[in-house]
């Protein structure tokens, strides 16, 4: 069935079920269809979409005057369907989609915490993003909530979150975090274990909630791009790209070809840098320090070229609305290309040495197994999804510029264990190196920045890119005067975190760090 077929089939089924769909014109057709539906059929629409095999990708709300608009983004075969519904400001309620799509669970709880929209029939009534920084009867993303809020001098800890409990002889609980033993972000993990075996794991995140959605309001496009670049510091290029793509759609702007290619180079370089770090860190978590030292050395070499060519080791603020901040000269291109040659050779040497190491194999094969059906049920994206047979990559399936100009293979594995997530990263590095070379060869002289047009009030945009962790969504709506009225970034971690609770089951507690690292979700990108 091709892409157009499924939208037609779904529409017919909706008609048969008596659901009226109002297809809206939008800036982001043809990549995404926009369907407005009545609030009462919100859940029914999810059920029919589930039957059609659509993946639930993102959900968010916004306040426009005296009403809320709730959005949910679904996807199949690289075609996106944005469904939206409007509900009243007084007693806002909506049938939950979380009972149909587990991926919607935390997202709806976030929307409840931030807007006070009640999702009827939601399987989990607990808060998610809210701890104790604001009262449960106030909602930060409502327009009448001041940015400063009314916090206490010392925000108390969230002591009464009802974790799942275990009973019976021999079971015990291990609370971990929010402050962890390593140099990593804060979050809480609650284990139930028998002996060393993990019976259950529950994540409690939200510790690094910085109010990104709220402080985005009223910003200029340039300032929003900076903020988006700090949603998750390791994904700075892709988050600012997604935000800029959304803003450019809203402004009706198309960026110069050269700028798109440079964005492609930046995003692929970011992917390589993070995968190099991750492969080393996975090995380090099973005490294989040789690999950690080698990969952190390769990563450092790579970052130094970032600094030389783009002026920042992590590539922050290189992507700006309308294009990119700085051009690459011919000598920069030569340096980038020259860098790739020794990296390829060194990777071959190191990977061969690792592949023959039985003590490493013993730890990463079969551990942290994520079956294909669970990966599909949770809508897992990026390398975590692709290591468990989820054949989806925005770069290939949506083919946004510059990826429409190149041919490349998307790596896929179906073993679903830590080793699989290790190998898929290696394959993605190799593919990214090729892409960088292709993009450089395609560069022709030209502009790198399109002049900014002020978008009309109320215009919106939806940026969708493949970050190094997977699919990133950014929704932007403008007010008048070039100011942002709503920004919602959906980091891939939001879809990937829940499967960590699944893939650690029946592993031993000491293997949790390596299981977690193999997934490597962003805490900051999740908590916003």
């Amino acid at each position, binding site marked *: 069935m091709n892409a157009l077929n499924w939208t037609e089939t779904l529409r017919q089924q909706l008609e048969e079920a008596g659901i009226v769909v109002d297809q809206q014109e939008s800036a982001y057709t043809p990549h995404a269809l926009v369907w407005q539906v009545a609030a009462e059929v919100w859940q029914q629409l999810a059920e029919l979409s589930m039957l059609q095999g659509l993946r639930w990708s993102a959900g968010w709300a916004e306040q426009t005057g005296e009403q809320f608009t709730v959005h949910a983004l679904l996807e199949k075969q690289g075609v996106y369907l944005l469904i939206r519904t409007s509900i009243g400001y007084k007693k806002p309620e909506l049938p939950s989609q979380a009972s149909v799509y587990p991926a919607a669970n935390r997202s709806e709880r976030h929307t409840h915490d931030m807007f006070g929209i009640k999702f009827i029939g939601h399987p989990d009534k607990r808060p998610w993003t809210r*701890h*104790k*920084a*604001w009262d449960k009867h106030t909602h*930060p993303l409502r327009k009448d909530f*001041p*940015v*400063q*809020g009314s*916090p206490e001098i*010392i*925000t*108390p*800890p969230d002591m009464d979150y009802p974790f799942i409990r275990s009973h019976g002889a021999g079971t015990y609980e291990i609370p971990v975090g*929010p*402050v962890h*033993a390593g*140099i*990593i*972000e*804060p979050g809480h993990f609650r284990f139930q274990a028998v002996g060393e075996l993990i019976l259950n794991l529950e994540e409690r995140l*939200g*510790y*690094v*909630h*910085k*109010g*990104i959605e*709220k*402080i985005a309001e009223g910003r200029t496009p340039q300032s929003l791009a*900076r*903020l988006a670049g*700090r*949603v*998750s*510091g*390791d994904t*700075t290029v892709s988050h600012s790209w997604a935000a800029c793509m959304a803003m450019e759609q809203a402004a009706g702007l198309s960026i110069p070809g050269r700028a798109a290619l440079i964005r492609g180079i930046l995003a692929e370089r970011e992917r390589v840098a993070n995968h190099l*770090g991750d492969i080393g860190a996975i090995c380090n978590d099973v005490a294989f320090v*040789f690999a950690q*030292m*080698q990969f*952190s*050395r390769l*990563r*450092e070499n790579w*970052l130094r070229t970032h*600094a030389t060519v783009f002026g920042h*080791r*992590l590539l*922050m603020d290189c992507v700006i609305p309308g294009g990119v901040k700085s051009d690459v000269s011919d000598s920069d291109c030569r340096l980038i290309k020259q860098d790739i040659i020794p990296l390829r050779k060194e990777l071959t*040497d*190191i990977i*061969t*040495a690792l592949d*023959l*190491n039985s003590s490493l194999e013993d730890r990463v094969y079969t551990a942290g197994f994520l079956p294909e059906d669970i990966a599909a049920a949770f809508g897992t994206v990026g390398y975590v999804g692709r290591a468990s047979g989820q054949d989806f990559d925005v770069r290939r399936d949506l083919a946004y510029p510059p990826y429409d100009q190149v041919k490349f293979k998307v790596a896929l594995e179906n073993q679903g264990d830590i080793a699989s997530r290790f190998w898929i990263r290696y394959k993605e590095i190799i593919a990214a190196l090729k892409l960088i070379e292709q993009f450089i060869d395609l560069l022709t002289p030209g502009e790198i920045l399109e002049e900014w047009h002020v978008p009309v009030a109320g215009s919106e945009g939806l940026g969708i890119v493949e970050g190094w962790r997977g699919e990133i969504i950014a929704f932007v709506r403008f007010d008048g005067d070039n100011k942002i009225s709503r920004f919602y970034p959906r980091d891939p971690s939001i879809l990937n975190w829940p499967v960590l609770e699944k893939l650690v089951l029946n592993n031993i507690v000491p293997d949790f760090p390596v299981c977690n690292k193999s997934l490597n979700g962003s*805490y*900051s990108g999740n*908590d916003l």
Partner: protein
Amino acid sequence: MLRLFKKILTTGIVTEPVKAPKDVELEQLGIAIKRHIDRRYSGSIAIRQIDAGSCNGCELEIHALNNPYYDIERFGIHFVASPRHADVLLVTGPVSRHMQTALLRTYEATPDPKWVVAVGDCAACGGEFGVSYASCGAVSNVIPVDAVIAGCPPTPLALVQGLLSLCERH
């Protein structure tokens, strides 16, 4: 196994020399030492890193301190897993309100005498996030800060030099 040893031998030692910085250099790097440093620490410090709300950018660069190029342990500076083992708390991020109590408790759990180093622009002044319903802003709004290493994020070199200036023999 032979391939592994061959790779180690052919890679050799890549660690780069870093000199203890002069005051002018520190200023250029955006490093501010606010308080007189206790002399008892000369020689070695144990660091507990706390992410109090950062975007993870600073953590990536702090990680780099342990890579073979910077190899910060050669200076007697090492990262520990508990605040109870630490002399220095290296705090990143604007302090999110949800992390405020955790940061205060970690600070209390660190034995005296102790220093707090705020790392990155957010930790120094609130950075891109500032003070809001969700963020307390700078680290100094929550616990006393002894030194600041600015940057978004600070480079590993700035971090090494900032830390070296703390444990310099006076």
